[in-house]
């Protein structure tokens, strides 16, 4: 099992830019991850719950057998080894951990206190930014998110036009190196709204010039490597664009109006980028047919949003997921992922639940916060569903976790039980609950 995980990750690393620091970091992360896995070698049997694999129908009174952090078996007739730790979950429901597909968790603490926020770098061209290196593994927001079932997240950089690369992290761990599951996941580019009807838009020119420079730099570097010329001067920013230009790293395009999205897609396709993920608000529903035809997956930002235009129907944003599903677009539901919303990443599943009220199928709702984000980020063999061989990253809830009335009772990340008492909001509850019951007035 460990070997297959290792080869999966080394494959992923092999796809990285060959001469960059990114690859070295990914290797270091892999090494620490394997150390942890070895240290936690154990077998756990979660028994008695209704298991919701997401990739297949629910199984009542089933067992999930976990060995060395991975799912070894699932079903109603699983043999439980004698040495396995049994966890009784009668009446509860097991689901794969939710995956937040676009947030600034770990790089935001108190949004209004500048010293605790690392979300926006200055300048417009920052391709060499690697967001994962600033993830604070002891952020108070992480245990609270996990208590809400958010167990992995795609962490995205902010600010400028070319923003750098993102990472998918596990929210549980002792360092960002250990928590990083995949990096770089995508290169982030914001398409300038002003370029929609202005061919001379300065921002777009800057992006194009940067990409051209990077192409030339990599051409020169390749020639140098082949002994056909002098090596170009080192340039961290241009070098970092190599993965995007070679197609190894997908492009994540950000746009918030359908005409901007449309222009952005035209531009990205003209540039020759083949692996495109669109990060967009509810306006994306108006491009659903094209996105399905072009096979572009979508990070849908904020179902809980006012209609983009004042004259649009009140439920314009609520129906966006259903429209994408109807057209056959693969999508993951996100919130805005920044500012105020970072601390409430835990509310993500309710957006999927509300979308069901507005026409989304139950199946798609669950997948839009589990399996589909995993697949969009190339982690479909690791996360997003309860299947043999995948990471045992899951939670037990009292009922449907897309309902706000349901409670999440237990959480496991890579097979290890997470102490929900680390959730600051619960800790304060425990601290004051008994005290208040015994106190009258002052």
């Amino acid at each position, binding site marked *: 099992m460990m070997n297959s995980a290792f080869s999966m990750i080394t494959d992923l690393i092999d796809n990285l830019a060959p001469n960059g620091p990114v690859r070295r970091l990914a290797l270091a992360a892999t090494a620490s991850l394997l150390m942890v896995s070895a240290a936690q070698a154990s077998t756990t049997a979660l028994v008695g719950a209704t298991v919701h694999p997401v990739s297949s129908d629910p199984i009542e009174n089933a067992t999930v057998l976990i060995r060395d952090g991975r799912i070894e078996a699932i079903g109603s007739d699983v043999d439980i080894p004698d040495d396995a730790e049994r966890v009784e979950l009668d009446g509860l429901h097991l689901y794969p951990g939710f995956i937040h597909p676009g947030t600034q968790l770990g790089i935001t*603490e108190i949004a209004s206190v500048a010293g605790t926020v690392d979300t926006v770098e200055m300048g417009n061209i920052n391709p060499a930014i690697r967001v994962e290196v600033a993830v604070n593994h002891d952020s108070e927001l992480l245990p609270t998110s996990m208590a809400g079932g958010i167990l992995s997240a795609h962490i995205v950089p902010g600010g400028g036009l070319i923003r750098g690369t993102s990472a998918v992290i596990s929210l549980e761990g002792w360092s960002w190196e250990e928590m990083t599951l995949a990096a770089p996941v995508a290169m982030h580019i914001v398409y300038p709204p002003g370029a929609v009807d202005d061919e001379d838009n300065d921002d777009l020119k800057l992006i194009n010039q940067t990409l051209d420079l990077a192409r030339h730099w990599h051409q020169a570097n390749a020639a140098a490597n082949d002994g056909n010329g002098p090596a170009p001067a080192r340039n961290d920013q241009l070098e970092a664009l190599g993965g995007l230009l070679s197609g190894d790293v997908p492009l994540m395009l950000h746009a918030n109006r359908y005409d901007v999205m449309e222009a952005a897609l035209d531009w990205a396709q003209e540039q020759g980028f083949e692996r495109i993920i669109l990060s967009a608000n509810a306006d994306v529903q*108006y491009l659903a047919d094209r996105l399905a035809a072009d096979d572009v997956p979508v990070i849908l930002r904020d179902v809980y949003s*006012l209609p983009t235009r*004042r*004259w649009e129907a*009140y439920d314009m944003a609520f129906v966006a997921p259903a429209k994408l599903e109807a057209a056959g677009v693969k999508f993951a539901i996100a919130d805005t992922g920044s500012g*105020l919303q970072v601390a409430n990443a835990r509310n993500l599943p309710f957006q999927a639940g509300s979308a069901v009220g*507005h026409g989304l199928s139950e199946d798609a709702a669950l997948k839009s916060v589990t399996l589909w984000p995993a697949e969009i980020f190339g982690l479909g063999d690791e996360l997003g569903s309860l299947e043999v061989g995948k990471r045992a990253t899951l939670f037990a809830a009292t009922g449907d976790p897309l309902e706000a*009335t349901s409670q999440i009772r237990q959480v496991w990340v890579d097979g290890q039980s997470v102490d929900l008492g680390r959730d600051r909001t619960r800790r304060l*509850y425990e601290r004051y609950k008994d005290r208040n019951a015994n106190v009258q007035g002052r």
Partner: protein
Amino acid sequence: MRHWILAGLISGLAFTTAQADWTPDIEAWNSPQPEQPDAVLIRNATIWTATDKGILENHDLLIRNGRIDRIGSGLSAPRGAIEIDAEGHHVTPGIIDGHSHAAILGGVNEATRISTADVRIRDVIDSESINIYRQLAGGVTTINLLHGSANAIGGQMSVIKMRWGASPAELVFDAAPEGIKFALGENPKQSNWQASELRYPQTRHGVEQIIRDKFQQAADYRQAMDSFPSGRAARDRVPPRPNHELEAIAEILNSERDVHSHAYRADEMLALMRLAEQFDFVIKTFQHVLEGYKIAPRMAEHGAGGSTFIDWWAFKYEAIDGTGFNPALMHQSGVLTALHSDNPELARRMNLEAAKAVRYGGVDEHDALKMVTAWAADQLGVGDRIGRLAPGMDADLVIWTAHPLSTRALVDQTWVDGRRYFDREADQRMREKLEAERAELMARVLDSNGDNANGNDGDGQDSAPERRRVHSFATHLTGYRQSELDHDEFCIFHDH
């Protein structure tokens, strides 16, 4: 039918139709008031009374002339009554949002003097805010319009009913007692903003001091006013100069004006309660009240309610100890507890905020609903008129397609004063009407056959005119008026 509607629109005529065909408009000024039928009978519903009668399955509710007449099973319909078969549906009181800035013209904060007790929301109600219609679609029937939190003593609030299409004066819920917004903590002491000139205070103890000072001035003012003689004795004497600020604060001291105070931390709330007790009045509610759970027994003893966002936290330092368990803990200590939005989008799904009170701390589902209905009404002093389904109460109610705390539930109809202000079918008619109007206008613009203009919203070329209406706002939201996106910028800030 469609042509007839179109004709009415194009000629700019207001028109009224029978109840069945009533169609709202996206513009309040063009939205006909729905009629108030003599009698409406809602049959076979699950009725959440928000009273000690509990949740009644398969019951009927009779509305007569805008008020709830009876709740029972097998009620007979009066002659001419409109009958609604609500089998499989749930009926709850209309949602009441005790903290809103969703319909205020010209700015939420009078961020100048530390006390602006003399300014009044009722002078600046935006009856045409699209938020009113949108929130009706989320089941909201009453909101409390408050000033922002820039000043320790903010301004006079206004409780309005969501009578879409009525004038500002007609929106005001005249049964509501007078109230005023206070604010404590980071915002009045300017931790995250700076007025053009440095302003006292810059600390929490300074905030407490300036409020105490204002109370003392107001007490002196009232005494001077009261002791000024009347009739002949007043001759040859100069009366005290009227002072609208101190007048409003004096009303607080006389328990004629309720204080609803923005606050996060326990210390500042303790200080304000102590101050109020020294001046012999009661703080009606603390707003946001994130640390209410730390002093819940003390709040209960004082009689202060707690109106909170259920789970917003950590967005500024004084919100670091916010917890979703706060409503459960306040409620368990006997604090009158309600949930509010403080945000025009969140206001559209307050039923799900109530659902979280079940999630965090296991509040009973019916009690959780009371936190956005009955108890919110009690905090605004209108619990004898709205927030509960019982004979004699205003017919402000919501018909839901499913369990009202479910994410899957939609609002099917929203009634205010026994008038159906939101109805999914009528909303659909409105969409068709707008689409027809748009097609007509497009046809005129293109001056060609109408077919070209009939495209859907999404397909590039067809939407050219819409594109031209897009402006480079800081946000992607388009076509809104400033008042519709206004918020208390010191409280819930937006991205970037």
